[in-house]
């Protein structure tokens, strides 16, 4: 009763701490959306596929682009117990042309139906096995005027768009999914130095039941390293670094939130020392008064979270579509929980001050 009435009638002072928390939550949510946007934009092509693991050449340190493996090894990987499917994966980061002009592209050559095929088809179809001159493309290319039936070209190689896939970007570039043969034509068109390597691809994707049999796969295909799809996503250059940097900023900012709450309630308790002494004299325990402060911190944090989330959402609507931000409910919930915990932790620092207030000071005093 005490705690909530004070917020209700205390007016401005709580508005100040709620406002500060709202701005902090806003900042953290935007950073979180940027972290998510960068992560999803960089890793979609290896997360949204049927592959549970990728084999890359050991010297590539897990990077698909750097890796070189031979198509002939796919059969060996497929023969490993536990592997239900294996397929070649070719990757080409390049520029291409769409109906409205130049486009950035990450061309993925796959064996349709085998491991490594995208699972996020939202319209149309994937290329059929062995089908040349067709591609399923990233939905992000729709803003470049590309739709089913459009033609895209890389160098002098063209492909007709037959399907659209979502959440499938690679290193923030929209993807085009073709057969390995079409991919290789495109590669040879823009990377003449790689011509004459008709069996070289970038990686072997495998689908496994349960955890990938890493040791058996590495033994079956010498010179390769096996990383799970998730590890492969994190091995994409910059992904891990971006993620840890942004997370460090987010956690530091949340620590600031705890500090703001701690300072606010330290001041509030200091200001109410006389009142708390009187209430203790009347028989209010330290625990009861402390719980009140924690409830206030939780309510102030909750209000700050709601206001911050609204601000972040409005910000999300206002920024241009090219900015890689992604507002995910999971991130919102995580940040909300962390903020609430930070607020409560901040308030806990006041408990010692409350405990130290001597009820005997309620008597005497003025005279």
């Amino acid at each position: 009763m005490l705690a909530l009435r004070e917020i209700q009638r205390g007016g401005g002072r709580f508005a100040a701490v709620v406002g500060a928390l709202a701005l902090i939550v806003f900042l953290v949510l935007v950073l979180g959306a940027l972290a998510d946007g960068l992560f999803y934009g960089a890793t979609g092509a290896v997360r949204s596929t049927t592959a549970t693991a990728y084999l890359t050449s050991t010297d590539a340190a897990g990077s698909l682009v750097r890796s070189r493996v031979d198509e002939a090894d796919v059969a060996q990987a497929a023969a490993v117990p536990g592997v239900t499917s294996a397929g070649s994966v070719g990757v080409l980061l390049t520029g291409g042309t769409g109906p409205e002009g130049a486009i950035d592209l990450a061309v993925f050559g796959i064996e349709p139906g085998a491991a490594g095929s995208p699972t996020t088809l939202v319209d149309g179809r994937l290329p059929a096995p062995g089908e040349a001159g067709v591609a399923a493309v990233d939905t992000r290319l729709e803003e470049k005027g590309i739709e089913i039936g459009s033609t895209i070209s890389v160098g002098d190689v063209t492909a007709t768009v037959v399907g659209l896939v979502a959440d499938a970007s690679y290193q923030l570039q929209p993807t085009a999914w073709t057969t390995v043969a079409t991919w290789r034509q495109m590669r040879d068109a823009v990377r003449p130095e790689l011509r004459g390597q008709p069996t070289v691809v970038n990686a072997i994707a495998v689908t496994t039941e349960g955890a990938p049999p890493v040791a058996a796969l590495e033994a079956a295909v010498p010179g390769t390293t096996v990383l799970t799809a998730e590890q492969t996503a994190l091995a994409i250059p910059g992904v891990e670094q971006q993620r840890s940097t942004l997370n460090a900023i987010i956690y530091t900012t949340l620590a600031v939130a705890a500090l703001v709450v701690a300072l606010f309630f330290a001041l509030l308790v200091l200001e109410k020392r006389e009142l708390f002494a009187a209430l203790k004299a009347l028989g209010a325990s330290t625990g009861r008064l402390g719980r009140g402060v924690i409830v206030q911190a939780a309510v102030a944090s909750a209000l700050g979270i709601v206001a911050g989330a609204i601000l972040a959402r409005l910000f999300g609507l206002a920024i241009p579509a090219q900015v890689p931000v992604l507002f995910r409910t999971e991130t919102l919930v995580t940040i909300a929980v962390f903020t609430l915990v930070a607020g409560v932790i901040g308030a806990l620092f006041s408990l010692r001050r409350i405990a130290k207030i001597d009820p005997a000071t309620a008597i005497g005093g003025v005279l």
Partner: protein
Amino acid sequence: MTESVEPILRVQGLRKTYGEGHTQVVAVDGADMTVDEGEFVALLGPSGSGKTTLISMIGGLLAPTSGTVGLGATEVTAMSRKELTRFRATQVGFVFQSANLVPFLTARENLLYVASLVGTPKKDAHARVDQLLEELGLADRAGNLPEQLSGGERQRVAIGRALMNDPDLVLVDEPTAALDTAMGRSVVELLQREIKSRGKTGIMVTHDLRMVEYTDRVFEILDGVLTHVERPSALEH
């Protein structure tokens, strides 16, 4: 009467010292006092005489160096901190110098708050608040915040708060300190009436001799030494 009734409040050899050695200060020096149920007594003394220390020990706010305080069946000086908190909530009502009401609670809520400390059922608490505020002439001020009340009204709310949990003992600390004479008189008169009509036991700390007439007996404390006086020494001048 062959059987003597034991006084409700029994203070024996109560002593409080601060510091050690030659810097030791004796705040209360072996005070003995008994107060009967239904009595309203005054504790007179100049500032620094030890009256605050004495009343704090009686009210379970301060642990004595030695000596005992008993209230009814309760041995106050034998209780733990936690027990003392409970004791103050249930058995003692305090009226402070400056009413010290919770500024963001209405008069009514200030009374309900102390009821919540002892877990009074809401319905009973509401009925009791209404009755108390009516008696104290505050029925139409129940929904006002302390800042909207006059000094006298605030002190009347504080009296209601002290009586809310039906305590055995009401301790009143300089209730007129923040009031003018007329208002001070009406507050102390009300206090006396409420304490007497309920058969409570009250101790009022004051340095204001004009308030003594409302009390049954007078104790005087000077340099930590408590004496029971028929007439306060200052009145003899």
